[in-house]
């Protein structure tokens, strides 16, 4: 049933998607696909492993990057330092989610009165999406403490978090904004026609729908933020990357870098799978809703 303002993907789109994913499901036709996928994966990785391990420099690389003893001895310290990454991530994320929503709402304010606010929000988002993260961290982390502001912490971790919040708020506000704009104007008309004010409409009708739609891209930005906590290490805060650098400098063996990398991956993979699961669930729900 085609209703005005109905933006669900049509059956053709859904069909194409499910065909793409067919190889992953069980089911009669799928079993052969799984077997083929498995075989081609094994062949592919066999070739890659063969090529790498038979390269001329492999014995040297294995010793300096994949040393089991180095790995075991560096893991406790790096894992302990990694707690700082998790802490930076958790604190920054809370502020990012709040500030980004504010920026997105400011950008959606209508009318000429709010032009200065809208312009500021746009300038902010443009600026902090344009400057490389590492530069913002360096400038704030080395510059801001030198101001010797009263009642403001001078710790590098603090300023690292501020820099990450500034950068990621700009990104996440764009994600929120896309969500707000994806809610059909007829929803606002319906809410306003019932006598709800603009703010009430935003709070009860627009934002709940907008946020629900952008959860997958939001989680994607979470993953980016988790990785970028390593950049705070350049300020001297001993997080996982900095700790692995210290270890590397001490032993001239690069295995600690790999240790740190594995820790980051171990944290982001569950989040990535969770994001996929959310996307799939959302699609399932919309499709079952479309039948009713």
């Amino acid at each position, binding site marked *: 049933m085609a*209703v005005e*303002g109905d933006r669900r993907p049509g059956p053709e789109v859904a069909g194409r998607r499910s065909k793409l994913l067919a190889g992953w499901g069980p089911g009669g036709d799928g079993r052969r696909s799984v077997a083929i996928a498995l075989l081609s994966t094994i062949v592919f990785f066999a070739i890659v492993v063969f090529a790498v391990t038979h390269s001329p420099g492999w014995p040297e690389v294995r010793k300096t990057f994949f040393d089991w003893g180095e790995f075991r001895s560096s893991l406790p310290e790096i894992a302990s330092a990694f707690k700082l990454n998790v802490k930076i991530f958790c604190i920054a994320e809370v502020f990012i989610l709040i500030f980004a929503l504010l920026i997105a709402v400011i950008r959606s304010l209508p009318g000429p009165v709010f032009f200065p606010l809208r312009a500021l929000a746009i300038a902010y988002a443009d600026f902090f999406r344009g400057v490389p993260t590492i530069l913002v961290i360096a400038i704030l982390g080395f510059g801001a403490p030198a101001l010797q502001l009263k009642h403001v912490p001078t710790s590098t971790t603090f300023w690292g978090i501020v820099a990450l919040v500034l950068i990621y708020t700009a990104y996440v506000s764009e994600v929120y904004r896309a969500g707000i704009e994806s809610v059909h104007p007829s929803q606002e*008309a*319906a809410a*306003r*026609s*019932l006598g709800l004010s603009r703010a009430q409409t935003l709070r*009860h009708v627009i934002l*709940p729908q907008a946020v629900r739609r952008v959860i997958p891209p939001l989680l994607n930005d979470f993953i980016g933020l988790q990785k970028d906590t390593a950049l705070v290490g350049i300020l001297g805060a001993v997080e996982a990357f900095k700790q692995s650098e210290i270890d590397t400098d001490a032993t001239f063996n690069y295995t600690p870098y790999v240790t740190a990398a594995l820790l980051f991956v171990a944290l982001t993979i569950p989040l990535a799978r969770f994001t996929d699961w959310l996307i799939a669930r959302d699609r399932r729900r919309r499709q079952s809703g479309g039948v*009713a």
Partner: protein
Amino acid sequence: MNEALVVDGVHKRFGKLEVLRGIDLEVAEHEVVCLIGASGSGKSTLLRCVNLIEPVSAGRIVVAGEEITARGVDVNRVRRRIGIVFQAFNLFPHMSVLRNVTLSPCAALGQSRSEAEANAIELLERFGLADKRNEYPDRLSGGQQQRVAIVRALAMRPELMLLDEVTSALDPELVAEVLEVIRELAAGGMTMVIATHEMSFAREIANRVCFLDDGVILEQGPPEQIFSSPREPRTQQFLARIVAAGRM
């Protein structure tokens, strides 16, 4: 006679396009007025202007003695007195049926949750929807969704209901249940302005039928007169096309 609604010389322009070109309409309390006319004749725009979703370009609209198009009028307060139901239902998809109905009484009228829910359940029961109260709109048929949308508007206890082609998006077999609800509202004395393409329904329910053509009310009168012996050639042409399409 008390006028529930007076539309006085209303014009509405979208850029260069003039959709309403001087509408005059008076609706008495408890009266049911049907607006008929081709798509683009201005029926929907007129209803949206009365609900202040669209600001008028010129003219006045008076609801129960208050000029709602005057400067400085609180639009939210005006809209609470006027219910509007749209062609595409526009239910809130993230809320249950019950919450769809109680949101506005709670947020805009300041009713307590329990008070609003008691009222909502009473209305839902009256229109045979009580068992759907915890469903989400996506799980309902179009007819059920539209009935919920009507209940949602009624929960604000409006003095005036505006219905904008409320059956046009429905599968034919679902139209009857929605028309039944409107019949019941009319029987209860609700003042209504109904834009519709359902001519036999308009003939049955309307106290007065207005034929809109190119942004003006070209002809109005009792349904028997408009449908049986229209005076204006344009009205005759329009109705002849409807008959030819098998819609009357």
